[in-house]
Structures are given as structure tokens and as C-alpha cells.
């Protein structure tokens, strides 16, 4: 390595680390502040912002804010709603999108290229530009549920799930991955008399783990962090997810300790999940940058 022969090699390395650490502090300190503050009573929390104590769990540390947050809002319900909506959407959308991508990648049928092109073209439509007319669409749709036929989807779980079950990015990711798999496997299975659905289920799904992980992570982040859509379609508390539940905490005299406790509760599980699977998380974001 050329670097080794340069003078002051040690000093240069130290300088590089110093810069890396300084930047790391910019990203980590606000998050650390959130978690540490959630453990302090409001008076101390406000006093501590004047010094480095803001980032240290010192003084009167307790979980009182967490208990208070549960008293202020039905936090357990919000978390359960978010988990249910996110899980249901991720699981069903992975199945529907991978199945469609399988057909796009391996089967020949009339109209295929046109349909795929239209789907890819929808990537350019930001959700925010269709949210308002979408409100009109879901307000006039029927749904057959436990209580029979109903019109209008507002204030339900399915209004937060069904519109997100198929999307262009997920289909695109699967198509890109399937294209590179060896076709011989499929042909062999077909000659053995397997149906196309069996080929999908028994041949392709078992070897497509990485792309399922990628798509699952992207969909998970998108769904768990949804805000605009649930804000518009859940006027009743019963169906609200965690991000909309935040509104209970930003009232006139904000109790910052409780806010930080709520923010920590809905963020730490995701952060833990990320730290555990960080390679997969980063790989999934990177794969959105690979255009065919």
C-alpha cells in the first residue's frame, strides 16, 4: 500500500478517525438525547439541556414517563395496530408481488410487456400526489366483512392495508432478481410435470431468500412509518397506528418526558431490528439504486 510509505501515517489515520467520529456524533447524539431524556422528569430534562448532561442518564432516572405515556394514550393499542397492519401488508405483498414477478420473468403471454411497462411507469407517481383522490376511491368502495356488506373503507384496518399490497418497486425488485436465476431449474421441474404455481412455490421461492429479505425490509420501513395516509383515514382511535398516535403528545403544554418516552418506545424496536440485521438493511437500500 502506498499509504504506508507516506510520512506521518499515524497522524493521518488519527485525523481520519477524528473526522469520522465527529460526523458520527452528529447522527447519534439526537437519538441518544431522545432515549436519555425519556428517563428524566420534565424539570430536570429542561435543566440538563444546558450541559452535556443532556446526553447522560444522570440524576433522577426512572421509567415514570413510560407509565405516564400509557396513561395519556392507548399506547398498547397503537403498537398492536401498527404491528398488525405492517405484518399483514408485508406478508401479503411479498406473495402477490413475487408471484406477479415470476410470471413477468418466466412466462410468455400477450400483453405482458405493456403491462410491465405501465407498472414500471407508475414509479414516477409519488404517493402524495394521489392521496387525495385515493381518499375518494376508498370512501366509495364496498367491503364484505364480519358485519356484512359495508360501503366506505374509512376507519378500518383494510383501508390501511389493501392499497399497499402491490407496488411497482417490489415487483421490479423481484423481476430483476428472478431474471438472473438459472432457467434450467424451471425447465427441469416443468418436464417433471410440475404446475407453474408449483414451480414458483417449490423451485423459485426457496432460492430467492435475499430478494424476499430486501423487499420485506423496504416494505416494513414504509408501512411502519406511514403517516399521511393513516392520518386521513383513521378518525377513530381504534384503528390508529403509532405515528398517528403521536398527536396525543403534542398538545399545548408539551410534557417532553412523555413525548420522549413514546418516541423511544416506537423507535427502539426498529433500531434494535436494524442493528441486528444492519447488513440486510443497508443491502436492501443499496438495491433500490440498481436500475436495469
Amino acid at each position, binding site marked *: 500500500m*502506498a499509504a504506508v510509505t507516506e510520512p506521518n501515517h499515524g497522524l493521518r489515520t488519527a485525523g481520519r478517525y477524528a473526522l*469520522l467520529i465527529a*460526523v458520527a456524533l*452528529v*447522527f447519534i447524539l*439526537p437519538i441518544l438525547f431522545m432515549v436519555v431524556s425519556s428517563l428524566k422528569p420534565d424539570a430536570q430534562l*429542561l435543566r440538563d*439541556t444546558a450541559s452535556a448532561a*443532556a446526553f447522560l442518564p444522570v440524576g433522577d432516572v426512572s421509567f415514570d414517563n413510560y407509565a405516564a405515556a400509557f396513561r395519556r394514550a392507548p399506547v398498547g393499542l397503537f403498537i398492536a395496530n401498527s404491528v398488525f397492519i405492517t405484518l399483514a401488508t408485508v406478508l401479503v405483498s411479498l406473495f*402477490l408481488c413475487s*408471484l*406477479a414477478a415470476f*410470471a413477468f420473468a*418466466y*412466462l*410468455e*403471454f400477450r400483453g*405482458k410487456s405493456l403491462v410491465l411497462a405501465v*407498472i414500471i411507469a*407508475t414509479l414516477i*407517481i*409519488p404517493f*402524495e*400526489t*394521489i*392521496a*387525495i*383522490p*385515493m*381518499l*375518494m*376511491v376508498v370512501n366509495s368502495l364496498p367491503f364484505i366483512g364480519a358485519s356484512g356488506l359495508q360501503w366506505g373503507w374509512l376507519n378500518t384496518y383494510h383501508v390501511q392495508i*389493501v*392499497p399497499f399490497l*402491490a*407496488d*411497482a418497486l417490489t415487483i421490479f425488485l423481484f423481476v430483476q432478481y428472478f431474471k438472473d436465476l438459472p*432457467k*434450467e431449474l424451471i*425447465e427441469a421441474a416443468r418436464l417433471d410435470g410440475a*404446475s407453474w404455481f408449483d414451480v414458483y412455490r417449490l423451485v423459485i421461492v426457496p432460492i430467492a431468500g435475499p430478494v424476499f429479505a430486501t423487499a420485506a425490509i423496504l416494505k416494513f420501513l414504509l408501512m411502519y412509518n406511514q*403517516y399521511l395516509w393513516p392520518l*386521513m383515514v383513521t378518525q377513530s382511535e381504534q384503528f390508529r397506528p403509532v*405515528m398517528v398516535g*403521536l398527536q396525543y403528545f*403534542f398538545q399545548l403544554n408539551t410534557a417532553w418526558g412523555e413525548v*420522549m418516552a413514546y*418516541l423511544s418506545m*416506537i423507535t427502539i424496536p*426498529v*433500531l434494535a431490528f*436494524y*442493528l441486528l440485521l444492519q447488513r440486510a*438493511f*443497508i443491502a436492501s*437500500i*443499496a*438495491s433500490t*439504486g440498481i*436500475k436495469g
Partner: protein
Amino acid sequence: MSAPGPQKSLQRHPLAGWLMIAPAVVLIAAFLIAPFVLAFGYSFTNQRLISPNPTQFVGLQNFEQLLGVGVLTISPQTGEDGTVMRDENGNLQYPSVRSFTRGNDEFPHLQGMREWFSWTWGEDRVLVLARDIVFMKALTNTLLFVAVVAPVQSALALLLALMINQKLRGINIFRTIYFMPVVVSIVVVSLLWRFIYDGSNGLLNTLFEFLSFGLFQPVDWLGNPGTALWAIIAMSIWQAVGFHMVIWLSGLQTIPVSLYEAAEIEGANSWQKFRFVTWPGLRNTAILIIIVITMQAFALFAQVDVMTNGGPVDSTQVLVFQAVQRGYEQQNIAGGSAISVILFVIVLAISMTQRYLTRER
């Protein structure tokens, strides 16, 4: 590749193919394409979410209402002797704007407009009037947000990617940390930063006071029309920059090491290596990143909704926030759709221009 002939015909199964894509196609048609087409349709009507009256076609009225602007030049009032009139402070006196925009038959095109901004031209005042000032502010704020965030965030993300691409022990720890805010919801980040930006107890003021040895005067970052949008810009970059760092990084890693070795043998310095090896290798990544950031920036909503509600004095109004205000809060689907259509046309125009400017030659 697979041989033509028998294998090819194996795959020609229209029924299986259509059955497999049907669920996804129906869902995309119903929840992406239909609302998209309806946005255009509604924007030419007076559709409301719930209304006792039938919906009517109103042509371009929604767009005229949103985009109507006019210019008015007014001369100072003159006295009977023809000299300009001044008030007790010596300032020129002008006729009121209302006398032109309310029931003045000579200026029918200015009817109902209000002053958006103005400047002085000699002794005259030039006023730019708009029919919907809040929308105009939302439009210009959104364009400003995109114009700042797109280049700054892409450049910072590239800088971080270059830092992370160094061969140093433990570098992955830093990559993990830089990416961390990306997995935190923007709603959570917005509420957290409301506290950081606070005027009396905010961490940012404390930090600046410390760095300036107490000289810095505390600022209420979100309560001040001059700083609120910039505070939102800085926070948005902080939250999302790791996302694009990762995309740059995957671009950097596609550049063959042999090119750097060759450059080193030629005696290239670090800047020359970046300029002649790294940068040309990142061309496609750069196009993608700029387009992705631009599209994400136009969708700005949660930060405004959580931090400022468009205030103070409309300094943080943005298009999506206005579309939601009208389409949802006021149940004016037509008005919200018209803003959505304008937003989409701008996004499309900008991404097509970017594609055209960066096309392969």
C-alpha cells in the same frame, strides 16, 4: 442463454401468466392508476368528499384560482399641483391596492387578488398580485426546498460515502451509525427536532452559545419566519442523507480497483483520482440519486405537519401540506386534486429535464 424451440413453447401459457399477475395488476389499477387518473378528472370539477349537490364540471376554474397572478404598477398619489404626496415621515403615498382589486371595472383581471410581494421602481411601486397567496407561497417554498435539498443532500451523501469507502479498521461501525436516522420515522425525527430547535431550552441554541463562548443570542428556529424553512431543510437532510450515502457507496464499489492502481502508477493525487476515475464511474448513480432526492423532496409533508403547520406566517407552507389541508381538512377533493396535479406535472417535468440533460451522448 436458453435454447429456442421446445423450451420457449413451454413458457407460452397465457392463462397461468394472467392468473399470476392478476391480483397485483388489479390492485395497482385500483389504488395507483385509478386515483392518478381521477386526480386529473376531479381537478376540473367541484367535487367534495361528501356533498348533497351533484358534482359539476368547472373547466379550468380550479387552476385559474390557484395560479392566477397579475402585475400592477401604481404611481404615487399626486396633489392638485401635480407634486407627489408624502406622509409626515416623508414616505410616498400610494393609492390602496384594494381600489384596483375590488370592484374596479378597469382592472377585471385583478378582481379578488391580493398582494403577494412588491418592490419600488423609481417612484412607482410594482406589485405582484396573486389570487391564492397561500398556494403561491406553498409553491415557491416547495421549489426552494427542492432546489436546496437536492444538490446539498446529494453532495453530502457523496462525501459521507467517500469517507465510508476508506479502508480503515472498524469502518462498518461508522456506516451503521450514519445510516441510523434513515430507519427512524420522519415523524419521530420531526418531533424530536422540535425540541432541539426550541427557542428557550433547545439543544441547538445551547450548542451555539457554547461554541461562541456565550456570544450567540438564542433563536426560536421554528418560530421565526426567516429560519423555519431552513430548520426543516437541515433536519430533513440529517434524516435522509444516509439513504443516499448507501446508494453512492454501492456505485463506488462498482468501480474496478485496477483503475485506481493504474492512476496511482501514473502518479495521480487524490483529487485527480476522484476527478478522473471516481466521478466518471458514478455517472449513472448520480442521475439516479438526483432524481430520487428530487421526487422525495417534492413530497415534503410530515415535517411541516408535525413541526410548524405551515407557519409562522405561511413561511413553511408546501404543496402536499396545502393539498391535504384542502382535500382532507376542508373536504374539497377538487381543490386538493388540482394541487396534486400541479405537483405531479412539476415532478414529471423536472425528472424528464434531468433525464434529458444527463442523457447518454
